[in-house]
């Protein structure tokens, strides 16, 4: 089991560098690019959501992403101290194709990952995202 921790502030411009770091770790670990893309997209959707909606003030907040990579799966725990929001209670189905303004990010995140679970720990949201992975050398 390999573990990695990333931190970013609540600034949307910080998402892409974090995704690049995670991609380097996953690709270096032999994870197939299709899985890497899905993982980064799911994480990006959640981080965009946290940064846009979780914090009532304009102050600086840290978001922590803890990743555990095993032979068969990746687990990410994302911690933020914003207002409580449980995405597992949010509808997971894709909105109607013509419904432009329907929210899509949370449903997309749930589709891309195998398991999404949520806990409120004190003043912290803790979202756990897990995805089974395949590695290139096993093809």
């Amino acid at each position: 089991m390999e573990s990695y921790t990333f931190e970013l502030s609540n600034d949307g411009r910080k998402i892409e560098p974090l995704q690049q770091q995670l991609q380097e770790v996953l690709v270096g670990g032999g994870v197939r690019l299709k899985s890497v893309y899905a993982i980064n997209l799911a994480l990006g959707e959640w981080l965009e959501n946290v940064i846009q909606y979780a914090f009532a003030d304009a102050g600086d907040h840290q978001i922590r992403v803890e990743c555990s990579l095993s032979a068969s799966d990746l687990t990410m725990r994302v911690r933020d101290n914003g207002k409580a929001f449980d995405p597992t209670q949010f509808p997971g189905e894709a909105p109607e194709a013509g419904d432009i303004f329907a929210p899509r990010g949370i449903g997309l995140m749930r589709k891309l990952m195998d398991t999404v679970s949520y806990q409120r720990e004190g003043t912290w949201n803790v979202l756990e995202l897990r995805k089974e992975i395949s590695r290139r050398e096993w093809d």
Partner: protein
Amino acid sequence: MATAIFICAPARLDGLNSGDFSAFTTSVVSAGAHRVVLDFTDLTYMSSAGVRALMVVQKQLHESGGKLVVYGCRPQIRDLLNLNGLNQIAPFAESFEAAKLHAQAAA
């Protein structure tokens, strides 16, 4: 034959820039461009915010009797659109010439 306007998407369309991309593209349509090709050749990452931007321009073109074609779309972006039930949002052209012909054909 109608003129097709090509608009190049950036490498990412996410919550940071999708609003600007959508505003620019819809302004081009409002200015009279009714055959639009979105060039996704450089686009490697699209979040749900980018999907929404694509839907906005597609709706605007549909309502004005225009036509949208997507060109150079990478497999991961196609997968994303499929996941959102949007695989029919526009014809997907595999080459520049095919995109131009698609866009210039009758809507």
